[in-house]
């Protein structure tokens, strides 16, 4: 039954694409009421020109070459496809190799299940690029993978992301060693020393050990951040704290880490000591990325997180960066995705209004210039007319 439902959906998508006919075009343009630039500023009368899946040009009132196919979205706004720096889409429950605590050789690329419905849900939420990460039940979980949530299957795997570590209580139990934080640090020190002494070791772990690459490190309390900051300084390694929702209580440690911090998932019932973190960190000059932690939470919680963070004082520009350019930098693909600019991948979202306004609907999603999601007709809403 589910199989046929999926086939039917696929068929519908193909039909709707046919109607748009944009995908058949290598070069085409989109006209929209406005778009959001990298600073979160609204640029009116947007014209976006696409060539072979890349952004050829974008600006206000650009002239469109004659004869070029034009999609008219004059009543809608364009925003960059969202990026989520820490998900386990399509891999729930399969992201832990439980025999050992240390899995530096594991690769989340092996978890990539392109046909999984989690990715369809991500598209629906405007999320176009994600970092697939091994679970927090491992001291060293393995290397993350950066993938697109839709589009041409051959192009969806962008490559390896940062290596993932975890210092949460979940990484320790009595069935395997190390069983404690001090045991973990002792073992990491030994592994780092070994990697540093072996110049031929080109593994992701060795690159991190030598300070050439940053790692994602999951923590689950404020004290974990402090321990991490101490360890990072001692060993000269670069660490990006994940789920550091109590970062506001250890601002000095976060600054000492000197790397972007991943926060979330935020929900309305979260206490202020969590939700104030994005604004406080951004004010202190720390780059922040929000995560939905999908599929544990819906991918749409990424936008919800921006709203909750903005409520506590996060600026528009910082809010947009936290779900686009900063996670793209963390994933190492900021030269391709995360903003609407010349030369970037044509990954963008058509919104019914301001992308940072939770009332705005996601109407269409494009990846590499190809339309991968079209929303159903919205139910009539009288307030839309007022807006």
């Amino acid at each position, binding site marked *: 039954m589910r199989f046929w439902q999926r086939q039917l959906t696929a068929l519908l998508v193909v039909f709707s694409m046919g109607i748009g006919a944009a995908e058949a075009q290598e070069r085409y343009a989109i006209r929209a009421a406005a778009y959001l630039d990298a600073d979160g500023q609204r640029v009116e009368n947007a014209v976006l020109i696409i060539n072979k899946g890349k952004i050829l040009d974008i600006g206000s009132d650009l002239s469109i070459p004659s004869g070029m196919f034009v999609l008219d979205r004059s009543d809608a706004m364009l925003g960059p496809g969202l990026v989520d720096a820490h998900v386990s889409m399509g891999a729930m429950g399969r992201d832990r190799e439980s025999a050992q605590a240390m899995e530096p050789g594991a690769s989340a690329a092996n978890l990539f299940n392109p046909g999984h419905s989690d990715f369809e849900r991500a598209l629906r939420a405007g999320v176009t690029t994600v970092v697939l990460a091994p679970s927090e039940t491992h001291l060293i979980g393995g290397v993350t993978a950066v993938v697109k949530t839709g589009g041409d299957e051959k192009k969806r795997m962008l490559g390896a992301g940062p290596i993932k570590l975890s210092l949460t209580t979940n990484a*320790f139990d009595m069935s395997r060693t190390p069983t*404690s934080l001090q045991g973990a640090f*002792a073992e990491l020190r030994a592994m780092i020393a070994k990697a540093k002494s072996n110049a031929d070791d080109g593994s992701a772990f060795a690159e991190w050990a030598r300070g050439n690459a940053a790692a994602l490190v999951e923590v689950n309390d404020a004290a974990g951040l402090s321990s991490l900051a101490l360890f990072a300084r001692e060993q000269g390694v670069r660490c990006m704290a994940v789920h550091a929702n109590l970062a506001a209580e250890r601002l000095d440690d976060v600054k000492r880490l000197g790397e972007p911090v991943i926060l979330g998932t935020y929900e309305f019932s979260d206490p202020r000591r969590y939700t104030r973190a994005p604004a406080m960190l951004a004010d202190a000059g720390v780059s922040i990325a929000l995560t939905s932690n999908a599929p544990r939470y819906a991918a749409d919680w990424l936008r919800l997180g921006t709203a909750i963070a903005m409520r506590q004082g996060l600026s528009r520009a910082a809010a947009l960066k936290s779900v686009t350019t900063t996670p793209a930098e963390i994933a190492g693909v900021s030269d391709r995705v995360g903003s609407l600019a010349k030369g970037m991948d044509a990954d963008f979202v058509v919104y019914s209004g301001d992308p940072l306004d939770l009332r705005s609907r996601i109407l269409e999603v494009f990846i590499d210039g190809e339309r991968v999601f079209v929303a159903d007709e919205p139910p009539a809403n009288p307030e839309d007319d007022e807006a």
Partner: protein
Amino acid sequence: MMKRSCATQGAFGGGAIFAIALACCLVQGWASAALADDAMPVLIRAKKIYLSPGNVVSPGAILIRDGRIDRIGDKIELADEVRVVDLENATVTAGLIDANSNAGYRSGYHDAEHASECIPEMRVLDTIDLESNDFKNLAKDGVTTVFVSPDSASVIGARGAIVRTAGAADKRVIQEASGVKATIGREPIFKASFNRTPSRFNVSFLTRRPTTRMGLVWVFRKSFHDAQLKARGQEPSSRGEGSPGDASIPYLMQILNGEIPFRIQARSQLDILTAIRLSREFNFRFTLEEGTDAYRCIDELKENDIPVIYGPIFDYPMGFRAGTGESDRFRYGAPSDLVKAGVKLALSAGDLSGEAALPMQAGYAMRNGLSREQALAAVTTVPADLLGISDLAGSLESGRSADFVVWSGEPFDATTRAEMVFVNGTLVSDRTVKNGATPADDAEAGSKPSEEASDE
């Protein structure tokens, strides 16, 4: 403010109260000014200052400049402008030192590594939270420096850390990894994890010794024996089973060579005598921790020149201590007996706080025979000496960092409390204001609890 200050009368009981109350205002003003980088030196005058046990000035004064004791004594000539704080009825001692604390351990994490029973390469500093409320509570009780002792779940445990209980994070750690702690008793056998008998279904790294005291001593001896073999380049005989990991060998050798401090937690007479026997076999020096039954081995302790970090003193063993059955023969007079016999004694509150905190421990020891000087030494100079930080803490001398306690009366009396605590010249705890309310104030405050709460 006035109204509240007057209320301190109850606590201080006497005529010079108003001076103290006024002084509190001054200190309050100064503390906030100091935070605002006001570099003005501060002169504190008190009724009595214990420079070190047996060395008292009365009245006395301390001049604090840039977080250090600039000058201290009965009379200080002032060359430049200073802020003067008069504490006419108060007594000052050096900040107390607890040489066997469990502060900063975090819930949810194992406090010890269970991968092996011999883990001297591990560091307690990796697992504790320096921002924990434990440290704030210690500071309030006048404890300014602690040795955070490794967990007792391993036969030969981790290395502890010497840290200040308050102040800027980067100045708090005095020694990242100090002494190694071993435990002789029931705790390595049952704490956090039971070592197991092998069965068809259950063979893991926990299938190991010790499950009895015989096994415990076997692990202890095996660790040092194999360390000596490996240090000589020889391989241990028994296929490496139960052998210490390579990473721990250097630390075991440092213990045998007397290069790092070594302490053994033992409570019962049996365990204390075992520790002494092992120290003679392998020729290492150690400090006895807890030592509930130490009064039963005074001759042996004296003969082998073994210092004791005694305590906590308790009314009745509770919690895991009761579970071990090792603390049933506790005696209030033990500290006094040890000191009288010439055993070097430090007092510790261990994991206890509140009415069993370190100043009260000293008070209980005094109640049972220790003089005030001896009690003061047991919580300042002796632990400083045992930790190897005598040049940093434990007594008040010019040039040292200004870690000291202002007591409302004679230290360790049941009616005395730590009114103000300074670490690195910064006021980190001040009870003179908040707790100085009159009963009338309390009634007032009590009638509107919701307003108080809503400020948070």
